[in-house]
C-alpha cells in the first residue's frame, strides 16, 4: 500500500481547506467584530466559523474512525528514523488540534455571556453543553477556553508550516512519493 485510501484523501483535503479558512477567518474576526465598520460582516463570519469548525470536528472523528481500519501507508525506507518520528509527531499533534480546537470552540459558545444559539449554517441548532452554560463559573471557563483556542490557533499555524514544508521537501528535494500518497495524481 503506497498511498492513502480515497476516503482518507478526500477527508484530508476537505479538512485542510476548512482549517485554512478557519484560521484566516479566526485571526481576522476577533478584531473586526470590535470595529463598527466591519462588525456586521464579522458577525456573519463568526457564525460561519462556528459551523465550519463543528464540521471539522465531525469530519475528524470520521477520519480517525476510518483510520482504525485503514492504516496510513508506510514512509519511505530511506527516511532517517528521527524524520519518521517527527512526521508522525506532527500528524498526531494535528489530530489533537483538530479535536481540541473545535471542542474548545464549542465550550466558548456554550459559556458565552451572549447566549446566542449555534445554528449550523443556519440550518439547525447545534446543541450547547448546557452543564457548562449553567455552571457558576461559566465566565471563567469561557475565558480559559478562549485562551486554549487562541494558543492552539498559533500552534496550528506552526504545524501547518512544518507539515507543508515537509511535504514539499519530500516532493521537490527528496523526490519521493510521500506527497503523492495524499495527492495520487502526482505519483511518479
Amino acid at each position, binding site marked *: 500500500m503506497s498511498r492513502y485510501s480515497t476516503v482518507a484523501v478526500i477527508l484530508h483535503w476537505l479538512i485542510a481547506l476548512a482549517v485554512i479558512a478557519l484560521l484566516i477567518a479566526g485571526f481576522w474576526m476577533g478584531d473586526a467584530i470590535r470595529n463598527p465598520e466591519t462588525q456586521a460582516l*464579522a*458577525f456573519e463570519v463568526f*457564525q460561519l466559523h462556528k459551523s465550519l469548525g463543528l464540521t471539522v470536528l465531525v469530519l475528524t472523528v470520521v477520519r480517525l474512525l476510518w483510520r482504525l481500519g485503514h492504516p496510513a501507508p508506510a514512509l519511505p525506507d530511506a527516511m532517517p528514523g528521527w524524520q519518521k518520528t517527527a512526521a508522525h509527531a506532527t500528524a498526531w499533534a494535528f489530530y489533537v488540534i483538530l479535536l481540541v480546537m473545535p471542542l474548545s470552540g464549542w465550550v466558548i459558545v456554550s459559556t458565552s455571556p*451572549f*447566549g446566542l*444559539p449555534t*445554528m449550523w449554517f443556519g440550518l439547525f*441548532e447545534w446543541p450547547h453543553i448546557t452543564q457548562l452554560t449553567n455552571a457558576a463559573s461559566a465566565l471563567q471557563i469561557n475565558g480559559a477556553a478562549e485562551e486554549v483556542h487562541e494558543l492552539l490557533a498559533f500552534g496550528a499555524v506552526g504545524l501547518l508550516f512544518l507539515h507543508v514544508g515537509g511535504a514539499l521537501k519530500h516532493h521537490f528535494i527528496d523526490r519521493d512519493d510521500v506527497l503523492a500518497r495524499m495527492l495520487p495524481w502526482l505519483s511518479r
Partner: protein
Amino acid sequence: MRNRSVFLSVTSLLLASSMGFATAADARPWAVDAKQSSISFSGQHVGKTFKGSFTIWQANIDFDPARPEAAKVAVSIDLASAKTGDAMYDKTLPSADWFDIAKARQAKFVATKITKTGSNDYVADGQLTLRGKSVPVKLPFTLDIAGNTATMTGRMTVKRTAWGIGSGSDAKGDWVSLDIPVQVKVVATAK
C-alpha cells in the same frame, strides 16, 4: 313587582346601549381585527437592522374619541411569539437575559391616560410591564374612524435596558441598539 322592575331596568339598559348611548362604565368597546393589526419592533444588531413582530397578543379597548379621558386600554402580549425571521434571534429573545419568558411570558400595557393632541392625534400614557418591571411609556397615535371601523397607528421608541432587556450581555448597546422603535397598528370594529 320586584322581578318586573329588574326586567324593566335590564331592558332599558339593553335599549340604551343598542341605541348607542354610552354609559359611564362603557366608554365604547372595540373588537380588534387580529389579521389587520400588528405590534412590531425593530433595532440594530452589529449595525444591521432587524425587524420583528409579536404574532400572539390581545387587547381590550374601551375608547370613545369624544371622551378619551374615560378610555380603558389593556394589551397583553405573548413574548414567546416574537418572530424576526432569523432563527438565531428568535431563539435568543426568549432567554433569561432578554425577554425571560420563563419568569413572565406576558408583557402588559395598560393605558393610564389618553389625551387628544390634534384632530386625529392622541397620546396614550401607560405602564408597560415586562420581565416583572413596570415602566411608564408614551405612545402617540393617530386614529381614523370610518363607520364602525377604527384604524389606529402608533409609534414609540423604548429603551430596552429600562426593563433590563439584554442588560446582562449588552448593557451599553455595543451589539444591540438600546433604542427599540415599536410600531402598533390596530384595526378594530365597534362592538
